[in-house]
């Protein structure tokens, strides 16, 4: 007789699982988000790293405390709070005081994520709620703490005060209030602008400026099949198309490329609008979702009170996700017609 194994696991099939896990997905996203952070140290200075670390640390702590308070399993190891911390820091200006991301993280993680049901049930993208809260509470800091990119100077240039003196304006602000001519006057010829903006050398939020590095990260997520192309493509395409049509002084005179390279379009399209919980799952629904975000972004940029609209556009669409899930369901095999004869 063979020896009887003492404890055999008995569970329902399947008995093998794919190698993917929530941790793997989340930490891959974290890795994809790191290059823009490193670049931003050189663009806006060393304090961006400090702001980001504070944001990440406070998101992780708030996540642990929230889960403890609400008697839920503590899941800080899964990396999702780290992503929220990174994203929150990436979409605030580089000249804000260090305590600001802490407030933002309480709002993002405790209120937007855990009070609304925890992961899988939250209606809104937590990082965006954190930012929206900060904009509403500290409108001056959040809309003026912009810094001009550092040129030929130390990365510690902006450390320890003096920030107010150098504060600048974002391209979108200049564009909204003074027109394309003023943008060119301030940031150089249009081809210089495309080049610098693509790499990330422009005023803006901490991690949103480098279209290049964010695109590389986004493409890696696409390659890993962690996200699909539908939302980024439809959202960016819509912004380009509508800006071209309505964003200029005459019809079809807008600059679509400038529109995509400024503000938070790339980071929003690849890293925020694609958030699993707060975006639909079916391809058609994703396309419509992306188009709506793009259209709302352009609407806010052109007609709204703020120069940038990506954040609110995504937040406006987030709560419609359950409805999208209801309207667009997978096509049932059994509902298809038989093809006999």
């Amino acid at each position, binding site marked *: 007789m*063979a020896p009887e194994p003492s404890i055999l696991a008995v569970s329902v*099939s399947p008995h*093998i699982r794919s190698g993917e896990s929530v941790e793997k997905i989340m930490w891959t996203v974290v890795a994809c988000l790191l290059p823009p952070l490193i670049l931003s140290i050189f663009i806006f200075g060393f304090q961006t790293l400090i702001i980001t670390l504070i944001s990440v640390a406070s998101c992780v702590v708030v996540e642990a405390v929230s889960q403890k308070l609400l008697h839920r399993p503590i899941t800080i190891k899964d990396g999702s709070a780290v992503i929220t911390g990174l994203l929150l820091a990436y979409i605030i200006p580089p000249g804000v005081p260090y305590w600001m991301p802490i407030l933002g993280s309480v709002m993002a993680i405790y209120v937007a994520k855990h009070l609304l049901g925890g992961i899988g049930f939250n209606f809104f993208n937590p990082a965006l709620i954190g930012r929206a809260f900060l904009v509403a509470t500290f409108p001056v800091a959040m809309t003026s703490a912009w810094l001009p990119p550092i040129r030929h100077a130390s990365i510690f240039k902006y450390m320890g005060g003096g920030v107010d003196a150098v504060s600048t304006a974002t391209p979108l602000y200049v564009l909204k209030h003074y027109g394309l001519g003023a943008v060119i006057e301030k940031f150089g010829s249009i081809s210089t602008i495309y080049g610098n903006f693509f790499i990330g050398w422009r005023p803006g939020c901490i991690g949103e400026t480098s279209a290049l590095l964010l695109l590389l990260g986004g493409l890696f997520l696409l390659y890993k099949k962690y996200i699909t192309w539908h939302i980024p493509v439809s959202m960016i395409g819509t912004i380009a198309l509508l800006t071209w049509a309505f964003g200029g002084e005459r019809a079809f005179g807008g600059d679509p490329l400038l529109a995509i390279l400024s503000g938070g379009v790339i980071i929003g399209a690849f890293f925020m609008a694609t958030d699993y919980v707060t975006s639909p799952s079916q391809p058609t629904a994703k396309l419509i979702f992306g188009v709506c975000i793009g259209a709302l972004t352009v609407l806010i940029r052109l007609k709204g009170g703020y120069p940038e609209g990506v954040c609110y556009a995504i937040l406006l669409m987030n709560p419609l996700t359950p409805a999208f899930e209801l309207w667009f369901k997978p096509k049932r*095999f059994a509902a298809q017609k038989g093809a006999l004869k």
Partner: protein
Amino acid sequence: MNKGLLTFPKGGVHPPESKELTEHLPVEAVPVPSQVDILLTQHFGAPCEPVVKKKDQVAEGDRIGDVEAGLGASVHASVSGKVKNIGFAAHPITVRAPCITIETDTEAPPRKFEPCEWSSLSKEGLLAKIKKAGIVGIGGAGFPTHVKLSPPPEAKVDTLIINGAECEPYLTTDHRLMLEHAEEIIEGAKIILTILGIKQAHIGIEVNKADAIEAMMEAVSKASLNGFDVKVAPLKVKYPQGSEKQLIQSITGRKVPGFGLPFDVGVIVQNAGTTKAIYDAVVLDKPLYEKVITVSGKGIKRPANLLVRIGTRVSDIVSFLGGINEDLAKVVLGGPMMGFAVPSLDVPVIKTTSGILFLTQDEIDTSPHGQCIRCGWCLEACPMGLSPNEIGIYVEGGQAENTAQFGVFECFECGCCAYVCPAKRPLVQFIRLAKMKAKKSM
């Protein structure tokens, strides 16, 4: 490399094939065990009544259990010997079942079978032989074959599909049967075509079995087909290619309607192993009392493809193969995607056992499950277009009875959803619970 091959369009996954452990190993016969436990519920359908008594002498191949009602199939003695007991034994799926235990008479000579000419037999005659031999679908749920081969007259069946897809990882029994018994399988297909009164058959084989495809093609070209149109259909490697509905769609493009059966779209599917058993039943008059199984996984000392008697205990097979490895964590009867985990090695092989897997900790994944993160991967993986994520959330939320809207009853538990779920949610388990509680309505 899989471009242009036949496949089904929606869902499916690519688990590691893990067939290299056994695919090159010829089938070897396991010595007759000292006793066998022959379960009276071997398969889908009514249980058998014993037709022997305790202490009766039986010979290899004798009928020992039979069933009058609808969907049963007879069972036969797999060894010669004495009926030791009629009681209960562990069952691989239903946990406990009535059982006839036979003590083997090691002196008894093995039974010999002579081939006979079948072409003069009528359709009824052929079906009677299949019924008498107790043939069931040995690749799946064990549906009695004589019933499956008697579709209602209004079903206009025009196509037979021989299922050699063998899409479950690890399993290599159909692979070996097609390599080693290609002629018999073709002959079996001809018998089925004769019974159905049709001409056309496709033999579906996934292209990871290139040698089997070649062997079957060669056998087709050498066989005297007398007007039958038999073709080999190479299939893309994608799980669950061998599921009836998916296979029919891959090969014929036809879609079996919800709650419908293959014959609703004019197709009958028979597994390659069952086709070989049909050949044995008709040409050799040999009942189904032994079968080929794959024994594999990193937890067994010597993986193998084995010819075993029905009723052989897993523990006897383990001894034959040199024992188990220390890190064994799970024993599964069947494939890793749809098979059943058993708590002990005391269970006997039944007609539908396609393999026994001895899996170690690194082959399975026992990490605890988390919340659904709504990645939607399960939706994409489900070949039936269901919403396993919602079913899981409803079941966890105590609303199992409201899950029919997500199609629980169309789920055939292929496991694709749970396989891909990054949160490791036990979706098939949730679905089974939902099926018990939900009211059947579309």
